[in-house]
């Protein structure tokens, strides 16, 4: 692998920047490209699930499998767009959209009770029983004015999460 930043032209950087709605500065995009190439060990133009899981900090994350389905097969442009929700320049709306996408695994714009149960399962593992999980979720849903059969859409998520001061930012190291 030679000097990676020379493989990215100014046009490429601008295209990527546009695609992610200016979430990252040009320098950050260059750094992300170096990182992308570092992760993409076999040089296939995308980072496979195995390659992501070789980062131990990522592999121990409870939501890694869920994120892998969203990350699998992304090329660099899409990779940057994926990460754009974590930029300090991203709006709260964008962050909530990202969270919604994580829940909405079938991508139909609606989050069901089971979707939420699945994510809760990822986060708590074997330390809460299935039954208890259902109980807890039903209870808080009803307290918030929903039912077990409710299908939550994006606007519901905005209502629920919008006021709680979402902190979801990563810093891209720039040499």
């Amino acid at each position, binding site marked *: 692998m030679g000097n990676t930043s020379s493989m990215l032209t100014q046009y490429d950087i601008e295209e990527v920047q546009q695609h992610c709605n200016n979430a990252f500065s040009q320098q950050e995009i260059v750094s992300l490209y170096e990182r992308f190439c570092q992760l993409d*060990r076999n040089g296939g133009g995308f980072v496979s699930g195995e390659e992501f899981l070789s*980062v131990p900090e990522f592999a121990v994350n409870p939501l890694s499998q869920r994120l892998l389905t969203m990350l699998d097969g992304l090329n660099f442009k899409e990779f940057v767009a994926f990460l754009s929700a974590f930029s300090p320049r991203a709006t709260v709306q964008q962050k909530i959209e990202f969270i919604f996408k994580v829940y909405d695994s079938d991508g139909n714009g609606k989050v069901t009770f089971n979707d939420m149960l699945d994510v809760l399962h990822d986060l708590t593992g074997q330390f809460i029983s299935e039954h208890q999980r259902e109980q807890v979720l039903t209870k808080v849903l009803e307290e918030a004015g929903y039912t077990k059969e409710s299908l939550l859409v994006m606007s519901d998520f905005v209502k629920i999460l919008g006021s709680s001061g979402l*902190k979801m930012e990563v810093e891209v190291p720039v040499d």
Partner: protein
Amino acid sequence: MSSGKGGELIPSSSELDLDRPNIEDYLPSGSSIQEPLGKLRLCDLLDISPTLTEAAGAIVDDSFTRCFKSNPPEPWNWNVYLFPLWCCGVVIRYLILFPVRVIVLTVGWIIFLSCFIPVHLLLKGHDKLQKNMERALVELICSFFVASWTGVINYHGPRPSMRPKQVFVANHTSMIDFIILEQMSSFAVIMQKHPGWVGLLQSTILESVGCIWFNRTEAKDRETVTKKLREHSQGVDNNPLLIFPEGTCVNNQYSVMFKKGAFELGCTICPIAIKYNKIFVDAFWNSRKQSFTMHLLQLMTSWAVVCDVWYLEPQNLRPDETPIEFAERVRDIISVRAGLKKVPWDGYLKYSRPSPKHRERKQQSFAESVLRRLEEN
């Protein structure tokens, strides 16, 4: 010592669990879910942003991958007069220095083999004399190797003494670490068994200085090796043991966690810190990218291998210390001396996945906080 294969992942064996202290003590994020107060609401359950942030942080940059990053040298030959200079340099290195070095090495091997083989075969009865001669000869061939890279090695500190119940530990950058140290005094090294010509050398010549082999991929191997280590360290006449507790080659800017095996033998630990000067050549052997032969060739076509070796003050297990704490303390001593940044990862994660224990710990802490808040209604 790393194997040459490219990153096949084997299921993490239980040995990885035993070797590590609590990673949570090191990682900056600590407990990933904040401790919120009061009643559990829907937004608390749905808000997965802390976990997502950790995952994204790991994707963007992580301390483990940084340990094995070999920075390609910046090209400096970018204009009219620098480029011909650089070309001259290439010519000198490849067409003058390299053949001279090959000749030096060949001469060295001839001298070595013509002395070693008779000594090995004829002096079978005279153990002490044979051992001493073989030691001297191995030191000789290592000197020839070092000469073949124009090694400029600065040794600091008192030379290792040959006493029993003494184990030397060092940080690990490449297999040449062993050669550099062996040149000064004879050690018995613990090495991963390699295939090819290296393996041949291991089973013939290095056996004579008492080296011990292990096979990283065999789970049961660890117990047999520990036993061999213990026997060797108790022996009076054996060469002192040299162990690289990181278990794998790291890029000489970071240090990964030390395995506790060397620190449980009940011996005095003598730390050695090795730091290579990157200006001359990057001596990091990235076993995922290069075979050892290519690595040696790269060294032989560079200007020089310049490094500092510090023999540090011997350490003993303190009465209130566990072996793992002892290992961390020694790692700290070596890292400070060699200017390495410490990283909380096990080097073997190069070859296998982290234990599910870490993920489970996060899950457990979140589950407990949910249940606790539920009861606060």
